[in-house]
């Protein structure tokens, strides 16, 4: 019996276990305080869909051996630039989303490549460097948002101020463009079909890439660089490729996130976005050295359901808004756990 428990524990892992128990407690509590389950489910589906691409963006980086890519804001910035340009030209609907992507992705390739070059010179310190590269790019872009010569009145401050607004409404461009695609209702639950399909498509592409010769090479370069060398694989090239793919997915991720959210968040908005994503994939059972698409799905689902269920329950018990505090404690706690654990395969 004890062996079975041990085995189960080893497979599930501590973070997933704790989060699941938490979730269970909150679900029971939700039932007790009579929260609307259909509404929670609907909002959960949306939140999983909108956050999952940013979590998926971590996969190529982990596979290529650069660990948790805390420099996600690099890709996020590219996505935001794409979106802002699309809005500036007053595009709407699917065209605005497509143009935003068309601008963002090439940018992300360039940025990812340059950042990949940096990462190859700082092997072993990717996480801390990534964090501060992300921070400085976000804060540097603050100056850009302020100075960039955008004219569309929907985006610039209405009265006298210069530069872009803190939040930009997307209702005239690509608000809910994916969520509403083929959307339908089961009872009271709204299904964001397009959003989930789009995420599914990206997952499939990432999976398919893993099956190619290059995908295999990247995986090997990440899991054992010396082995990769003995197979004739260029490790540095694979690390750059992983970084580029991660940055591309991050820029797609923020566009998916924004269309669902209905706003673009500029300035300091994206500063901390990498941490919940990292926490989600870790909760899903990934380690900084090993990750799979299943980890993305499970992790995002667990983490987001916790975030959907817990705050209303807590609010019944105490006043005030704790979703932010709650998210902060969970995500940083999970990352700390990952940092303080000795993962198999060593450093």
């Amino acid at each position, binding site marked *: 019996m004890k062996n079975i428990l041990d085995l189960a524990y080893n497979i599930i892992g501590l973070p997933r276990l704790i989060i699941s128990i938490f979730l269970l407690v909150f679900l029971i509590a939700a039932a007790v305080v009579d929260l609307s389950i259909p509404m929670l489910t609907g909002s959960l589906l949306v939140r999983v869909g909108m956050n999952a691409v940013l979590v998926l963006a971590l996969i190529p980086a982990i596979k290529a051996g650069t660990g948790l890519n805390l420099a996600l804001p690099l890709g996020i910035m590219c996505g935001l630039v794409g979106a802002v340009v699309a809005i500036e030209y007053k595009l709407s609907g699917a065209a605005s989303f497509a143009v935003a992507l068309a601008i963002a992705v090439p940018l992300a390739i360039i940025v990812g490549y340059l950042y990949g070059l940096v990462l190859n010179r700082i092997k072993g310190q990717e996480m801390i460097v990534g964090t501060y590269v992300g921070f400085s790019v976000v804060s540097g872009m603050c100056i850009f948002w302020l100075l960039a010569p955008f004219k569309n009145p929907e985006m610039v401050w209405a009265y006298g101020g210069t530069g872009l607004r803190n939040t930009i409404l997307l209702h005239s461009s690509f608000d809910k463009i994916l969520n509403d695609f083929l959307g339908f209702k089961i009872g009271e639950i709204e299904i964001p079909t397009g959003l989930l399909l789009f995420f599914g498509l990206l997952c499939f592409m990432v999976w398919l890439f893993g099956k190619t010769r290059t995908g295999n090479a990247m995986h090997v370069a990440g899991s054992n660089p010396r082995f990769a060398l003995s197979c004739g694989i260029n490790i540095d090239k694979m690390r750059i490729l992983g970084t580029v793919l991660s940055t591309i997915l991050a820029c797609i991720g923020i566009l998916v996130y924004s269309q669902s959210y209905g706003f673009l968040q500029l300035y300091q908005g994206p500063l901390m976005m990498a941490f919940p994503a990292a926490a989600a994939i870790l909760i899903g059972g990934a380690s900084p050295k090993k990750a799979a698409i299943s980890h993305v799905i499970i992790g995002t689902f667990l983490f987001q359901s916790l975030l959907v269920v817990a705050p209303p329950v807590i609010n019944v018990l105490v006043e005030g808004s704790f979703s932010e505090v709650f998210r902060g404690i969970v995500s940083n706690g999970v990352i700390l756990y990952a940092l303080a654990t000795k993962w*198999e395969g060593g450093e």
Partner: protein
Amino acid sequence: MESTSLLKLDKICKSYYGNRVLKDVCLEIKKGEIHGLVGENGAGKSTLMNILFGMPVIQQTGGYEGDVVLEGNQVCFTCPSEAMDYGIGMVHQEFMLIPGFTVAENIKLNRERTKPNVISRLIGKKMETIDVQRNRHDARASLDRLGMSFDEMMPVGGLPVGYMQFIEVAREIDKENTKVVVFDEPTAVLTESEAEQFLDTARKLANDGLGVLFISHRLDEVVSLCDRITVLRDGEVVALLNRGEASIQRIAELMVGRQINRLADRKKTVQVNKPILEIRNLAVEMPGEKVKEFDLDLYEGEILGVGGLAGHGKIGIANGIMGMYPATGSLVKQGKSLPLGDTMLMLQENMAFVSEDRRGVGLLWDESIEHNIIIAAMQSQKKFLKRVTPLLTIEDRKKIHEHTLKMIKDLDIRCVGPQQLVKRLSGGNQQKICIARAITLSPDILFVSEPTRGIDIGAKRIVLDLLLQLNRDLGVTIVMTSSELAELRSVCDRIAIIYEGRLEGVLPPDAPDLDFGLMMAGEFEHKGADQV
């Protein structure tokens, strides 16, 4: 010379995981004596030293049997600092010096002289001020005792490597109660004049009444320096020689000598006139296994053994050719010149490599058998791929599966199935996976390094048979590097011995023990050259 016994190791036995590495080893060091300890790699010297120094690895693997007696008292050290407190000094092969600290700071590390101050009186001894002048004075005194004149206030990082050894010795003799000093390969990194100076130092220490244990592969030094010499072989003491009885030849023979069982009863003659690979001026920058200037012709269809002591570069040769470490020189394969340093090219040219580092280089620890076997061939030779659409080529599951099953059958890999993770396999089966990975590349030359390291005896035999079979049935030319000379002599057609990064000579497997011993010690002189 006095003859009081200072340190006595009595009937020491030790096994690692059921593997007996030391058997009834006795060794005595007298006051003022320089005692030599020689043996091949794996003869048990390091284990013996680990016991003497109380390295944690000994306790973790179940301790040892027998007694360690220091000045008549039985002792058993559980950690290095305990051994230090009892007066066992060690001069490490890898320098244990902090580059950013001065010579004096290093000599006095964690034994600094301090003086009390106001705060230390309140809080405790840890707050006492470092007495720089007295530390400097102590360090100077130790250096003077060794006849070293360099400035004790220089940072160690900027000093030539030769000095480091002396700083380590100075640190040991600065400890007031040091009774026995152990030198592990002290002259390996020294120039000739430095080595000379170092040996004088050792004599001086012995004259001062310390016991010196001198471990070295340089047999000339051992013979000229030591009062007595203990020769270890396969974990046993095979001889204790007094000064005068010992000669380089005698020691070399004792170190190597053992029964050889030829596995291969080969009638086949290798075509000596048809080199498949010509290696010229090979130099490899592999840390700890540097190759300096290596020339050799490899003949088609042979099994060439590469032997030599650890650190002399035998491991570096295959690693350098296969591009695992930076290498220079020229390489001609079947008339075609190949640039060094391009692993991909070597694999495409049908050369394969089974690394000595099974866990680090040879295997993807956390992956399936299947993945481990096919990945190199997929990457370098584009095997196991299928085109789905003109733009998309992905792995061919079916081919991979079939090939893996064939390998499992052909090589008799004991596993649950192609999906089993290699970390769950035994050492012998893991080695078979490494070989399967190499065969999948359909090589005409196969480099195999340390094929039997860390696997049990039964599996060793199987792995060696497998190599013979590859050579016989598929005509693969094999270069086998091994620390176990007996193993090389049991399967190889010729054996090249490397000494200090250069080819010392090539011997037939049935050459006398003495020749092997001399070559490995770099004492073969001119004899080797004619036989190449």
